[in-house]
């Protein structure tokens, strides 16, 4: 029997690894991958609590999260490609095209 708290702690560790990746990396692709890590950390808790309370809703919600993560990855990668085609940068530091 594994207490549900363990899963919360594991998910938090994964989430904050993703946060560190988003904050410290410059490559937009690795930033997007760290965001995927954060999505998955949320899914771990959904599924762990669904199992703990034997309730399906966590599974449905995790499914929706996977769908939204797929949409986000597609749009993010499209933005990276377009930004690269316009200005040839692959550094999130240089992406200041929206600055007012």
């Amino acid at each position: 029997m594994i207490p549900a708290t363990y899963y919360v702690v594991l998910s938090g560790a994964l989430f904050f690894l993703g946060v560190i990746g988003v904050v410290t990396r410059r490559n937009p692709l690795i930033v997007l991958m760290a965001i995927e890590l954060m999505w998955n950390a949320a899914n771990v808790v959904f599924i762990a609590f669904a199992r703990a309370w034997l309730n399906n809703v966590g599974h449905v919600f995790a499914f929706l999260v996977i769908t939204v993560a797929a949409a986000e990855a597609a749009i993010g990668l499209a933005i990276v490609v377009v930004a690269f085609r316009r200005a040839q940068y692959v550094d999130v530091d240089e992406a200041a095209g929206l600055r007012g």
Partner: protein
Amino acid sequence: MTIFVLLAIALLASALFTITAKHPVYSVIGLLLNFLALAALYLSLSAEFLALIQILVYSGAILVLFVFVIALLSSGVKPFDSGPNKLPRIGMPAIVTALVAFGALVWGAVQVPFTPSVGPTQPNGPPGAADVFGSVADFGRALFGPYLLPFEMTALVLVIAIVGVIMLASDAAPAKTRGHHVKRPRRVREPITKTKAKVG
């Protein structure tokens, strides 16, 4: 318990490798290991359908998309291999802040007494049986029964994503700037002080 500890170690190690790897291709490999360990964790939580979806959608679709973009962008292009790959002077503050927030989360999780814990076996029926908790039949009954509206909303989300990606990809940039580097001239502003001096 052993399975949980092993999977947790695999998850954390592959996540660490993902965010510290130098080249994005190595990050993709770390992320692939992470997703496989996650699928195994979902299986141990008797979420069979979601374990399959994790492998199909994440490892099969999203990671391949990442690999395509890396192959598209980094062919013969310098900045992917060279140059500083981390933001300067932000590593330590980021790690300290994340650790503090993580400590707060652990403290909060310990405060709350979660009564249920996750058992080792299938709750209702042997694993592999057709209609147990987390199986396709069980999941489908929930998804197409009471949660049909959120499911249809995901269809809307995907349509919006497709429309957005097509709009982004149908190159809105003018033909001159397409494909090669264009140095935009810095906009030179009139020095305000001189005009003021003239007026004065």
